[in-house]
């Protein structure tokens, strides 16, 4: 994946092009970009023929893992990957760890695994299982396993744990990614954790930036962290937190921010330097 900045505004907003999208030939996408949210592999209420009418706007598809995890074994047997299974193989597919529309309860992640909440309840996912899922699903982009439960607001201890664990998961995911033949065309994204604690956020950003990831996901700012809702970006110090994270990240890699952002908040986030959003707001 190649991320090329075309222009940067004074306040930090950027326009860019992403090319070399692996199996997609010479297709390119431009950022800021919106990922089309899916639930259990379908764009809510729209069949594929209806989605085709949205044209290039529906090209990048966001697949949150929780509701798809139950299909892991099936996909292993199917062997053609999740794109083919969902008849979405001509789309750019990005697999995230959590689903912004599902608010998981706090306190269920352990050192060696993260809890994901599917239809039949809690599923524990460690790095081995996680990477096995990636190999079965074969997405174009995926977010490395991360612990986004940063505990109560202001709690340094739990926030620090989320940073440490996430880095450990990332390193192991990167190792396995490198060895994987199946994932050689896929790109791995690192997650910035740390809850509402500025120092932890900076640490997470600095350390993640050192790893060979394709881009970054700013985690814990939607439903899965102490900052509850992303909206509005100007309240509760969220803007400052995002700013402090972005200051530590390299310019030449894309930044993803998940969660239900309305148009006004998307503009605010773009101005700060976010490149990629999802369409959970519509849902």
């Amino acid at each position, binding site marked *: 994946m190649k991320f090329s900045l075309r222009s940067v505004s004074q306040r930090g907003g950027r326009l860019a092009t992403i090319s070399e999208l692996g199996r997609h030939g010479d297709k390119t996408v431009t950022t800021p970009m919106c990922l089309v949210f899916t*639930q*259990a*592999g*379908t*764009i*809510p*209420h*729209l*069949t*594929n*023929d*209806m989605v085709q009418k949205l044209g290039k706007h529906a090209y990048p598809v966001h697949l949150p893992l929780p509701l798809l995890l*139950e*299909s892991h074994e*099936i996909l292993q*047997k*199917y062997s053609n990957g999740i794109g083919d*299974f*969902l*008849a979405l193989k001509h789309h750019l597919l990005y697999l995230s760890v959590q689903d912004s529309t599902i608010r998981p309860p706090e306190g269920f992640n352990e050192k060696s695994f993260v809890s994901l909440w599917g*239809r039949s309840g809690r599923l524990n996912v460690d790095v081995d299982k996680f990477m096995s899922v990636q190999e079965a699903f074969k997405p174009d982009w995926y977010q490395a396993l991360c612990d986004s439960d940063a505990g109560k607001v202001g709690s340094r201890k739990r926030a620090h744990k989320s940073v440490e664990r996430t880095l450990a998961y990332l390193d192991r995911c990167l190792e396995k990614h490198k060895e994987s033949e199946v994932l050689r065309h896929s790109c791995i994204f690192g997650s910035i954790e740390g809850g509402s604690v500025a120092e932890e956020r900076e640490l997470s950003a600095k350390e993640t930036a050192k790893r060979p990831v394709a881009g970054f996901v700013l985690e814990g700012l939607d439903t899965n962290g102490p900052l509850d809702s992303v909206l509005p970006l100007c309240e509760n110090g969220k803007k400052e937190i995002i700013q402090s994270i972005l200051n530590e990240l390299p310019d030449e890699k894309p930044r993803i921010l998940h969660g239900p952002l309305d148009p006004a908040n998307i503009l605010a986030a773009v101005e700060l330097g976010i490149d990629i959003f999802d369409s959970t707001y519509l849902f």
Partner: protein
Amino acid sequence: MSAPVNHSALTLKVLAECSVTKARACQLSLPHSVVDTPVFMPVGTQGSLKGITPEQLENSGCQIMLGNTYHLGSNPGAELFDKVGGLHKFMGWKRNLLTDSGGFQMVSLVALSEVTEEGVRFSNPYDAKDMLLTPEKSIEIQNSIGADIIMQLDDVVSSTISGPRVEEAMGRSIRWLDRCIEAHKKTKTQNLFAIIQGGLDSRLRTICLNEMSKRNVPGFAIGGLSGGEDKNDFWKMVTLSTDFLPKHKPRYLMGVGFPVDLVVCSALGCDMFDCVYPTRTARFGTALIPTGKLDLKKKGCAEDFRPIDENCSCSTCRQFTRAYLHTIVTKETVASILLTIHNIQYQVFFCRLTVIDTCGFYLFLGTRGGNINIIIII
């Protein structure tokens, strides 16, 4: 083959007739498009097939679909249709529409309705307003809706009822037919069909057939059946009606039905059918296939990487496996849509193939209907 007969808004051309049964393949020309019969018409009560766009419906091969006068008359109402210029424009459907008169609601909403010679009074559970549906009112609403085929208001009783009420309803349906004919303003663009009643009584049916066929209507429907009665009684009434009804006018058997019924009733000489079954069962996770039904909720589908039907060319079967559908059926709305598309296409083509125009009905039974063993003694 008989020469095509022309009423100003309808032409029926009989293309082929089976030499053994009463089955026939026809071309029915209606104001919006041509329909190949036998035809299965899916039901879009409120002006849409639940979850399907008109474009998806067109792609599935559907040439004519149903709307309902009672429901559309309540919401959005005839006045709006007058302003818009009819239901075709309102819903963006270029092909044909057929509206039922509101008669069936006398059975389905029997607890909320009261029938007199004047008409039927419905109380609406949503807004507590009463609607008095007279033959005149029904035709007025149907004229506003603008369907290519409209149905008379008939006095409908459940097929499981017997006694004097059945005869009363039959007689009243004849009188209401005359009132409908009188009230119908758009004979050049809308075809008014009569509906034969008489319950499961051959004497009453015959009286009704005699009387109604004297009226110059473009087509006839066989009503008051498909309501849970014994099949042995059902077939008899169907064949009695088709024996009597003129060959050069279309015969519409209302409320039918399951694939087996489509085969048998085509053999008995019916041309048109409607039923909520394929669309309703789709929403509950069941797909129609040549060997019967496929319940996609069943565990057996979880690792089945075949499409619903390998010989089906619908958009669902071209893209998706049973395994995928199993993951979303009854859980995501898209599953309802995908199965509805398949079931409509399946049923529409199944019905059309019941009579292959040059080869005849028995060839169909040999190739497609091979799993059906029916013995009918009439």
